[in-house]
């Protein structure tokens, strides 16, 4: 068992054992399953109970990771810049107050703009224990690591003892989906399987989030036709138009010579393959990075930068950035669809890897959680694959480690970007 779920290991083992015995009943159990989650002061429920270490500048990165080495249930994120950035701070605070996070240690060097003390204060205001220190005031690397380990041990013990448990069902879950390392199977099987699961999750009262509006080019009408109400329709049009403007200005349509050689002919075709992960239910509206869905149902996350004089920020510079965005929106679990095969994981929220390519599932079996390629051969229907995926999501929510979790993959990526937040107080660089 990986160290990060050790507090739940007995439960996870039971789930694993049962799977081999009563697989058939599990196939239909997700919709009615209930399990014990971790209740947070804001009423949200987590599927993990983690201590999160946050460093506030690249200079503190080594110490933060050294503190986490060998520590159970302890993950690390951080921001490399010395100059602060409102977007990055919002993102880190959303991660610090995530339902899977019970406590936070923020570590700074001591001369950067981003303030670990303010991060700890914001986390404490959310009802979670939080501590912070500057390395420059703690005697350098060795003593800072020792100090950090003491704090982590204290915080972990506290949240293990004191976090109330509460029953959870699919209705309490927010699940995000990202795709990357795609091949021809992603649009045909991988993403549609997620779509089938998202339909099931939405029908059960849960929240489903997908993103990459810059990869929905050509789908303005398709997106609008899925809007749940006129307000959502307006939000979708605005998000689409911003993404298309962005693509025109950077002259990049998210489609490459390799895509064409592989058989994709138009950007609409590629976009529809990505859009297939949305399933068929109405889209409730658009949220932005670090915002949580305003109600149950299916939501689009807009991670495209807003216009800004510095023009900084690519929309999705890599898959990990998109996954962090989905976690910042409160996803307790994230699905990642990859046809060619990817080996990333994520901190805070377990990542579940789905491939529509059965060959990839075999050749990268240590990394892949779910073989959706069986849809292409007719071995299972799309609806069956969606139900099987729902059951896997429930088992992961109950504490069974996903493949990336069991390999201790915890990649993260937080960088400078700009998204408009009119209500935010001026004070750090927008």
């Amino acid at each position, binding site marked *: 068992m990986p160290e990060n779920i050790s507090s739940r290991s007995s439960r996870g083992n039971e789930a694993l054992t049962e799977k081999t015995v009563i697989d058939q009943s599990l196939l239909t159990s997700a919709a009615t399953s209930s399990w014990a989650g971790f209740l947070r002061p804001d009423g949200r429920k987590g599927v993990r109970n983690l201590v999160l270490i946050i460093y506030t500048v690249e200079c503190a990165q080594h110490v933060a990771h050294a503190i986490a080495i060998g520590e159970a249930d302890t993950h690390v994120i951080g921001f490399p810049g010395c100059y602060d950035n409102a977007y990055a701070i919002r993102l880190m605070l959303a991660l610090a107050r995530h339902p899977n996070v019970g406590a936070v240690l923020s570590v700074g060097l001591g001369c950067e703009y981003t303030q670990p003390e303010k991060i700890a204060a914001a986390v404490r205001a959310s009802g979670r224990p939080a501590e912070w220190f500057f390395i420059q005031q703690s005697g350098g690397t060795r003593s800072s690591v020792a100090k950090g380990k003491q704090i982590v041990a204290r915080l972990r013990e506290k949240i293990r003892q004191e976090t109330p448990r509460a029953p959870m069902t699919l209705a309490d879950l927010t699940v995000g989906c990202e795709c990357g390392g795609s091949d021809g199977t992603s649009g045909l099987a991988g993403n549609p399987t997620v779509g089938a699961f998202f339909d099931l999750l939405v029908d059960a009262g849960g929240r489903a989030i997908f993103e990459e509006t810059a990869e929905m080019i*050509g*789908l303005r009408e398709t997106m609008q036709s899925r809007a749940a109400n006129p307000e959502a329709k307006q939000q979708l049009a605005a998000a689409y138009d911003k993404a298309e403007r962005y693509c025109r200005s950077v002259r990049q349509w998210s489609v490459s*010579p390799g895509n064409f050689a592989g*058989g994709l*002919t*138009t950007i609409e075709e590629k976009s529809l393959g990505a859009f*297939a992960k949305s399933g068929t239910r109405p889209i409730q509206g658009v949220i932005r990075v670090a915002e949580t869905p305003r109600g149950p149902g299916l939501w689009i996350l807009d991670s495209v930068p807003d216009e800004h004089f510095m023009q900084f920020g690519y929309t999705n510079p890599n898959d990990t950035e998109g996954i962090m965005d989905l976690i910042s929106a409160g996803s307790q679990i994230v699905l990642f669809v990859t046809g060619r095969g990817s080996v990333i994981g994520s901190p805070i929220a377990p990542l579940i890897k789905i491939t529509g390519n059965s060959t990839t599932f075999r050749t990268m079996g240590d990394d892949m959680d779910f073989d959706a390629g069986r849809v292409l051969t007719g071995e299972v229907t799309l609806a069956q694959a969606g139900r099987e995926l729902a059951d896997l999501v429930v088992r992961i929510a109950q504490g069974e480690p996903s493949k990336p979790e069991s390999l201790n993959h915890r990649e993260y990526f937080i960088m400078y970007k700009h998204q408009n937040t009119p209500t935010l107080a001026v004070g750090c660089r927008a």
Partner: protein
Amino acid sequence: MMSRAFQVHPNDNVATLLNDASGAVQILGARTREIRLLEKISRGHKVALKDLIAGDAVIKFGARIGHATKPVARGAWVHLHNLASEVDERSSTLDLHSGAPTDTSSAYA
């Protein structure tokens, strides 16, 4: 084993080849039947499931992915030479087989 192609949505007028194929192909997915290819088509590429005339919408995932730029017969390969995007005009100028741009020779001078 017979070569196979996958049709995503019942309304689709194209299917995606799951193997490099020529001759008879079994269509799986939203509908199952057999179709005879008029030419060799590579894995991942599309075959027309019905005759199309220029201007017809090409439908995959149950939605429009562009329009036919010339007549396309049932069983023919559907790609850059006979299907154009409504958004990205440049894609129709790319090399049919490699997808490489053909409009940039001046940049390499």
